[in-house]
């Protein structure tokens, strides 16, 4: 079972912002093998573990990973989800990550998605953070047809933390559906969800961000911030922030900046000889760059840089 559509309230149905159907994924998940990963107590995985998901080739249509981070251990996993083969390939792919981070442990999951537009991608992640544990998630979405991605982070432990940074640049008819839940149970637990994206053409996006403060999580703090740059009038953009509160001593906040580039900024850049297309490209890449710069591994950052710099090969430089 995926948790992309799970929310402990009926709000979405009333708002009619939850029309995805995940039933088709059950068959794919049933046929997949589960990859178990363990980082032993006190271990520090200084070298990140790379998991390349080359969709469309010999790769199974589903990939499941369980990560167990023992007490005090830390580890980083980098997943690149790319298309293997021609651009005409299409299909469904499910990636599911489960984690358990024991006391004082930390786990960073970095995902970079650059699929072609024929793919329907289900990217599911959920897990539990014990006392003082930290789960860090960095996601970059550069391509795909339909992308359903989500997170359900159970902040059970006291002072447990969930930090999530998402950057996306979607165009064409890419449909991006996001659901992120920080489920606060532990005292003084914290969550930060930061989403920064660019939309163009006929792309559509929905971001549901939920901070759920359960009774007993006194001192917990949660924040979600979204910044969207809209490049065309034909896009469809929806944002559904939700803060549920069953505890008095908590702080929850949401902020969103949705809009176009400021005309003064455009004029300033034009006054240096930079044309409008280039300005939008630069600003779009800047959003992804700001998330990519959080990736601690230089090799992964370089790969992201190559992926996003490809389209800005300027006409004047092709000679």
């Amino acid at each position, binding site marked *: 079972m995926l948790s992309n559509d799970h929310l402990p309230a009926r709000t979405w149905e009333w708002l009619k912002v939850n029309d995805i159907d995940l039933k088709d994924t059950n068959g794919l998940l049933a046929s997949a093998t589960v990859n178990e990963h363990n980082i032993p107590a006190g271990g520090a995985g200084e070298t990140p573990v790379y998991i390349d998901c080359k969709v469309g080739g010999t790769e199974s249509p589903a990939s499941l990973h369980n990560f167990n981070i023992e007490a005090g251990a830390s580890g980083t996993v980098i997943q690149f989800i790319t298309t293997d083969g021609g651009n005409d390939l299409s299909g469904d792919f499910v990636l599911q990550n489960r984690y358990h981070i024991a006391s004082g442990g930390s786990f960073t999951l970095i995902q970079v998605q650059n699929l072609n537009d024929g793919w329907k991608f289900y990217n599911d992640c959920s897990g539990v953070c014990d006392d003082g544990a930290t789960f860090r998630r960095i996601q970059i979405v550069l391509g795909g047809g339909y992308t359903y991605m989500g997170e359900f982070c159970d902040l059970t432990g006291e002072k447990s933390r969930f930090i999530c940074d998402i950057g996306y640049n979607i165009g064409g008819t890419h449909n991006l559906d996001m659901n992120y839940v920080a489920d606060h149970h532990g005292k003084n637990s914290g969550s930060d969800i930061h989403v920064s994206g660019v939309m163009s053409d006929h792309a559509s996006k929905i971001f549901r961000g939920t901070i759920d403060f359960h009774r007993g999580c006194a001192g917990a703090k949660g924040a979600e911030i979204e910044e969207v740059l809209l490049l065309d009038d034909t896009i469809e953009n929806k944002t559904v922030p939700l803060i549920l509160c069953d505890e008095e001593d908590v702080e929850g906040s949401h902020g969103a900046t949705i809009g176009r580039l*400021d*005309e*003064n*900024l455009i*004029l*300033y*850049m*034009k*006054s*240096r*000889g*930079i*044309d*409008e297309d*280039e300005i939008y490209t*630069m*600003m779009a890449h*800047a*959003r992804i*760059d*700001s998330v990519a710069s959080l990736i601690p591994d230089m090799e992964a950052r370089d790969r992201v840089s190559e992926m996003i710099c490809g389209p800005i090969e*300027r006409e*004047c*430089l092709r*000679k």
Partner: protein
Amino acid sequence: MDDLLKIEGLKAKVEDTEILNGIDLTIGRGEVHVIMGPNGAGKSTLGSCIIGDPRYVKTGGHITFKGEDITDAPTDKIAKMGVFLSFQNPIEVPGITLANFIRTALELKTGERIRMWDFRKSLEATMKLLGMDTSYADRDLNVGFSGGEKKKAEILQLLMLKPDLAILDETDSGLDVDAVHIVSKGVEEYKKQVGGALLIITHSTRILEALHVDKTHVLVDGRIVDHGDAGLVNEINDNGFERFINCENCKNDDCEVKKKLNDAK
């Protein structure tokens, strides 16, 4: 000397307000011109109109640059042709570093890929000349810069982009004595390295000290009401704009404002 910029009868308005009421101005290659005038005279509007700011509607006249009519040309084309406007209030550009911004502008201007090593060397040498900490190269353009650093970043762009005409819109305003000195040094360096023309909009003489001023123009109510050599700058500094506002004392018998006033009498 060849005409680099020629403005004939330029009229412009923003929304319903006429700001420029027929400007004639010719700048030759390598010349230094100074525009002075009281607040609200239209000095910045003139700079904005030359660079093609679409918020100003040109209702009459023509602007020619290097013999090509740029009256209705888009800003990026005018800039690529070699016009540079140093903004009075430089804009913050989050996400784009100062180095990337300049490198992109240079590549687009020259149409050639610039080797990172060469670019970085040249950029850092220029930053040092302007007394800028080189770490600013990797900071988002103008984001969190002090007023002085923003103005230095403008002059840095001027020196790196090497335009044929630089319009400096009150680049020296709001700066302390040391910062004005550094900015002046940068402008002097631009003259030395590039030999380009300058149109300097200013209220003070400090930025002009190291430059040879060819012509000074006084702009009042959207018209150039007087012009002269560098001596006019000193005269204005001593006596202010009073005599230009009170047109009776104006020496320029061709002045439209004066003519109108005389006609009214």
